[in-house]
């Protein structure tokens, strides 16, 4: 097996050629040793998290990119600030779907190190299980499982092989993709197909050649048979294996033959040459707008395969890559609704106090725990249309009228002062110079003679800054 080989070659003598190869291939520049401007700090906090707080900015400006990335890859997280409630009542995540969503949103808002939650959400999108099909306890437990693989401080050796093994027999997954109905003699191909199509390989490789055929799906399904879910106690569902339901025969798929069980079957799938490129490309696209160039992709694939399919080494490469900082003066990635929502709450100092953010997330098109199908959400430009732009704006507009957002009234405030105060209250995010001028112009031409006028002016200023078009990119 590939893993054994890797362990054996893990010596200085055999690392040297790799280094030589790398020198010849001239790998893309890393920014690991670059000292960060505030813009670069912001970029990393948005791409690897949910935006910076003012304290994050202060703490990291002037420090090296690699130092922040290493901190994210090795730390906590710790939840700081006000614990979540829903209209004054403590959350009951497995009893109430809104609380389920709020419980996760709260973690995103209050984590000192946001990367673990960001990664957990990446895997949630990747596996696409929905609360519509499985119980809240099952999917809650699955997210906890994904979180343990994403908390790299506590789980430094977190690797994709272990993750795929665990998810294959996870109760939520067994139910969602009907693995529990996969029995010797009556194979159910649902999970087998998605394990290859969506989770590990993709339908075709970069040249458009199919990565597997229908016979591979059928044979793989046989190997995965025998697992069931026990939900007798809905508060503690678990999966179990029944020997008599497993097909013990020899299966042949992806060019390998054997009396494979589920564990071995996952290894066969992961040994497919398109696995690493497929997953590395997807992981990269989570953080960087421009697709990886061939050299970068090859470097990531190489690192991934050589380092035991562990996440930390490849994440460090991606997050310190210069491409992460491309178009630094004008952010070039559209915030997903969940990143936008958690980010706005962090920027405004909001905590989870009611179900309003979830209602907005639903209209924005990204209700956590409810992806549209097993392929997850559709990212990119489709996030924005005439409907979703309004709900994005409204999220901020509603926040501006609620506590604990600063509602101070300053009667003699000049337009510039009003602008500055609104800008600070919304976290000082990116605004193009042009739109900065337009918003300041709004402050200048809007009367502030009465308390109500000044209040409205503050709310509109803040909404335009964070909820307007420039607030949608990171």
């Amino acid at each position, binding site marked *: 097996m590939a893993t054994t080989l890797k362990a054996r070659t893990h010596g200085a003598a055999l690392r040297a050629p790799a280094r030589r190869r790398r020198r010849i291939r001239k790998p893309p520049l890393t920014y690991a040793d670059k000292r960060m401007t505030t813009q670069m700090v912001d970029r990393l906090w948005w791409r690897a998290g949910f935006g910076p707080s003012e304290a994050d900015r202060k703490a990291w400006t002037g420090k090296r990119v690699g130092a922040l990335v290493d901190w994210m890859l090795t730390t906590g997280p710790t939840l700081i600030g006000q614990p979540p409630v829903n209209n004054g009542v403590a959350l009951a995540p497995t009893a109430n779907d809104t609380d389920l969503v709020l419980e996760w949103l709260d973690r995103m808002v209050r984590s000192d190190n946001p990367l673990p939650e960001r990664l957990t959400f990446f895997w949630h999108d990747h596996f696409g299980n*929905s609360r*519509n099909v499985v119980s809240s306890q099952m999917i809650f437990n699955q997210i906890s499982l994904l979180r343990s693989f994403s908390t790299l401080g506590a789980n430094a050796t977190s690797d994709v092989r272990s993750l795929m093994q665990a998810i294959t027999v996870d109760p939520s997954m067994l139910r969602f993709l009907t693995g529990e109905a996969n029995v010797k003699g009556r194979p159910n191909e649902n999970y087998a197909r998605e394990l290859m199509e969506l989770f590990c390989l993709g339908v075709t490789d970069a040249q458009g050649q199919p990565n597997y055929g229908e016979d591979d799906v059928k044979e793989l399904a046989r190997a995965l048979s025998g697992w069931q879910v026990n939900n007798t106690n809905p508060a503690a569902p678990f999966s179990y294996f029944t020997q008599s339901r497993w097909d013990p025969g020899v299966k042949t798929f992806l060019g390998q033959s054997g009396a494979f069980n589920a564990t071995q079957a996952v290894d066969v799938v992961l040994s497919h040459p398109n696995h690493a490129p497929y997953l590395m490309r997807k992981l990269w696209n989570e953080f960087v707008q421009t697709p990886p160039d061939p050299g970068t992709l090859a470097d990531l694939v190489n690192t991934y395969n050589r380092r035991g399919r562990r996440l930390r080494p490849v994440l460090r490469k991606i997050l310190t890559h210069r491409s992460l900082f491309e178009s630094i003066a004008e952010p070039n990635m*559209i915030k997903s609704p969940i990143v936008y929502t958690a980010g706005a709450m962090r920027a405004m100092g909001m905590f989870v106090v009611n179900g309003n953010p979830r209602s907005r997330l639903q209209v924005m098109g990204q209700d956590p725990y409810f992806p*549209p199908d097993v392929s997850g*959400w559709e990212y990119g430009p489709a996030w924005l249309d005439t409907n979703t732009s309004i709900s994005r704006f409204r999220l901020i507009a509603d926040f501006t*009228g609620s506590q604990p957002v600063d509602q101070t009234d300053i009667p003699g405030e000049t337009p510039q002062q009003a602008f500055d105060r609104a800008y600070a209250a919304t976290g000082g995010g990116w605004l193009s110079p042009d739109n900065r001028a337009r918003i300041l112009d709004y402050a200048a031409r809007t009367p502030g003679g009465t308390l109500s006028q000044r209040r409205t002016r503050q709310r509109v200023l803040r909404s335009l800054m964070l909820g*307007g*078009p420039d607030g949608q990119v990171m």
Partner: protein
Amino acid sequence: MHEPGDIDAIKALHCADCARSDSAALDLAPVDHMPIPTEALTGFPDGVPGMSRLDRRRFLRNGFVGFASVYAASKIPWVKAFEAAVAEGAVPNSKLVMVFLNGGNDGGNTFVPFEQAQYDAYAALRPTIKRAQGGTGPGGSTVMPGTAGRLAFANVLTANGTLGGLDTLWGPTGDFNDPASTLALFPATDYPNPNFSHFTSRDWWFAGALQQSTTGWLGRWLDMYGSNVNPLQAVSIGSNVSKMIRAAKAPVSSVPETLGGFGFNVGGAPVNTEVGSLVGAVAGNASTARSRAVYGQTVQVAQQLGGVTHTPGANYPANSSLSRRLQLAATLLSANLGTRIVTIDWGSFDTHGNQVAGQDPQLTVLAQALSAFQADLAGRGIDQQVTTVVFSEFGRRAGENLSFGTDHGAGGPLMVSGTKVRGGLGGAPAPMTSSGLVRGNLAVTTDFRTVYASLINEWLGGDAAAVLPGGTFTLTREDGAPSLFRP
């Protein structure tokens, strides 16, 4: 295999190959990512037509005075686009409403086989969920005039035994020459070698092609024949922008089913002009450009809709989102906004279990809502301008399953209705006898692309061959009618 009463397990098993399906009634179900191209929805080309004095008056009437006095209106892109959209004025009198029934509607229990041999086969395949032959109450079926006794309406009956609406659209004769026959039925419509995945099938129906596409078939039509400034030319009501109208260049929009206060506001006060001042800066990257363009379009749509009073039509089924969406569609189509296309995504037709309880109430609402919509359009004097198409991503298996439902199958019913539509039997009913089935599925008698081609060539205008890849598609009707539309 499962604990008794384990609802989740039963639910999951019913949906064996469709865990990838949705249950949300949003048509956002990609196989591959199908991003709207960056230039889509941009809609702010340079050199849009200047506006006449009349248009400017109309423009200012819509509530821009305060804003226009601060900024030179002509320099703001969305204002230019708005002016140009208003200046475009009247559009051709052919409008299309696409109603997508989400989940795969079962045709067998919508239009029941009536010929004895076919009915017997149907009844044998569906011992539990079959509809009776004849009868006037729920659970019965009523033979359809003009089908030579081949098909009967089912599930269009209301509690008091009166037919629910499809019969009024169908008319007393079902004859394509009869002006009262305004519903064309294609009982088993799909594509060759149907794929039983919800999202593959949906994507292909939406793309109008048997492959993934970044644009929908109507989006491509808009790119070629539509407006480059008016996002209201194609509107998805009650969901985000449908994949059907995703375009490479043409602006399109989505609005909620309740229109009230559409636009940007803070604490209830509109701030569309303020937001509109932020969309004109030139962006250096596609994402920022996209964001500003969409915000600009939202402002534009809010302004265009600002002068519209929504007057919901009468006699629609109560408490139904389909009613609300069709009511809003009628208002928009009659409001001289340049709207050519409306898409509506509705329902939950993935009836793997207990189908009768799931499908019947929805069909009742559908039938009544469609007939109310037709009357609504007639009341507004625009029924000659509107064609409505009802379709689903696939049909269902001929036989029932052990859960009293039906699994994913081939050949679902497609309906085209409108005053200008030649009603009648457009496609052949699929045989239910064993020799006529294809591995337990209905034989597909109509390729949906032939209907699309007629909708383009005969109704919307344009060249279907330029819009639909994969060949030349010609509709041949079962009842011998020469075309889908009246001259």
